């Protein structure tokens, strides 16, 4: 399992680099940091979904609140057959199929985001709806650390704890870098797990690049009945490409021809 996850993650990273390159777009660092999480989420043992029926009523809902890393979701969805691989060649292009920030016009995408701080509130509404109807699908949300600057995210955190929404699973892709610098220098989130647990969530911390640990953890949800689950996934911005890793520049860096060549060479064809 680990080997195949490894191969799959590598393939997704190559797709992300390809899209960022042709799009001359930013956010490659944000995409690469969450690839391993995305690959496990959609790996078959966590999220329940049907590529041939994206709106299947009993699917697990996944909302990518860090919509600027939408290309990582697109790459995973196309690999699972939600839409043709060729659509990736249209990322950011005139009359393209894939816009920079994640869009619900793309098959398999549950919800559009792009402005931070929106995803978790919507998850709360979906979670309430599921509970009212005694439905057993789960609501997954991925946050960035920038998302955790937004007051609206904390409004939702307080509410989900209050309402005991244990059908919500939130992962923060905690790469510790935001647009203009390191999290600790901008709004230091400190021990974010402690803060979240104080609002009635069950929290676990993991290495967000260890596929086995990610899968093991995600298969344990809810961590506690009556509490929403929160996973602090420690990640590295730009993971997998040495000259992007843990750099502020990787948030906005454009991927030049040379950078693409170097990055693909480094990733290798695993």
């Amino acid at each position, binding site marked *: 399992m680990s080997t195949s996850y490894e191969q799959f993650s590598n393939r997704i990273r190559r797709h992300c680099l390809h899209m960022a390159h042709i799009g001359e777009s930013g956010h490659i660092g944000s995409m690469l940091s969450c690839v391993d999480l995305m690959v496990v989420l959609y790996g078959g043992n966590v999220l329940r979904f049907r590529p041939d029926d994206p709106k299947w009523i009993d699917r697990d809902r996944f909302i990518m609140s860090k919509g600027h890393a939408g290309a990582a979701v697109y790459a995973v969805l196309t690999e699972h057959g939600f839409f043709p691989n060729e659509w990736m060649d249209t990322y950011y292009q005139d009359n393209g199929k894939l816009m920079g920030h994640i869009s*619900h016009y793309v098959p398999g995408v549950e*919800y*559009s*985001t*792009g*402005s931070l*701080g*929106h995803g*978790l*509130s*919507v*998850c*709360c*509404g*979906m*979670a*309430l*709806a*599921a509970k*009212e109807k005694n439905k057993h699908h789960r609501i997954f949300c991925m946050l960035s650390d920038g998302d955790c600057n937004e*007051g*609206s995210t904390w*409004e*939702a955190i*307080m*509410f989900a704890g*209050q*309402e005991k929404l244990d059908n919500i699973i939130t992962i923060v892709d905690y790469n510790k870098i935001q647009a203009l610098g390191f999290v600790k220098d901008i709004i230091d989130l400190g021990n974010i797990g402690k803060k979240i647990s104080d609002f009635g969530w069950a929290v676990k911390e993991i290495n967000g690049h260890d596929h086995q640990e990610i899968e093991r953890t995600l298969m344990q949800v809810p961590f506690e009945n009556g509490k929403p689950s929160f996973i602090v996934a420690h990640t590295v911005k730009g993971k997998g490409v040495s000259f992007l890793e843990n750099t502020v520049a990787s948030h906005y860096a454009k991927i030049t021809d040379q950078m693409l060549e170097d990055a693909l060479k480094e990733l290798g064809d695993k």
Partner: protein
Amino acid sequence: MRKIFNKRLVELAEHDERIHMVLADIGYGEIESFAEKFPNRYYNVGVAEQNMTGVACGLAMEGNIAVTYSIANFPTLRCLEQVRNDVCYHNANVKIVIIGGGVSYGALGVSHHSTEDIAIMRALPNIVVVVPCDPKEAKYAVDAMIAHDGPVYYRCGYKNESDVHDGEIDFSFGKALTVREGSDCTVIFCGPIGSEAKKAVEKLANEGLSCDLISMHTIKPIDKDAILGSVRKTGRLVTIEEHNLSGGLGSAVAEVLADGQLTGVKFKRMGFPDVYVHEVGSQAWLRTLYGLDSKGIEDTIKTLCSE
């Protein structure tokens, strides 16, 4: 008017399990009936309007009708991006209801005056903007709001609004209602300020000046035919709104005239100028201060008709 809104919503919710209320700790003395009857469809998220709107959107994305409800600018401007990106972009079945359109809250002050909301909300794609003028319109607008599949902005009055329509009305979104007919001037209003317009028009009728008096309860989509049809007849037009002049009813009507290539119309827009209404006083007093009472309206129509 808010009592009528809440009563009608409860009546509809008895027969429609999709209807939910999502509140941000506002509604004391009004929402208890819904909360008591439908505790499983009622959520108070606390003083957190962004979350209120996001939660409502999530409920709506799962096939429900979610009503957010608060004072003046709280469920609109405070969480405008949630209204735009979440509700309107996703065309979610969320109904955004404000209590206290215009300066209904009078002496409570600028924070509680809703005087830019029509302009801002009508700029958003996918949303219906409705401003009922009296208890009759208020009730039927609730029915239309629930029947409509998609976002609705409902600008409710506060209390004790008087009837503008004398008889029964045939209410539907996008179809203006004529209160009385005339040939000298078209007078178009939205909201409870219609009672002032009606007084003015009735007084003028006694003096031999007859006006088409039209309630434009739906600002978006606006009833172009009603505007153009009446103005072609009268050649004169006054719009009246309890709202700033930038982008509100008067602007929406002006757009219709421009798009309809209607030239040579004598046209006056009445509303608040580009200001915050910082003076202290009741709604009635503030209306008078800004010339938006029946006397001010009467004078404006007279002047326009004498030019």
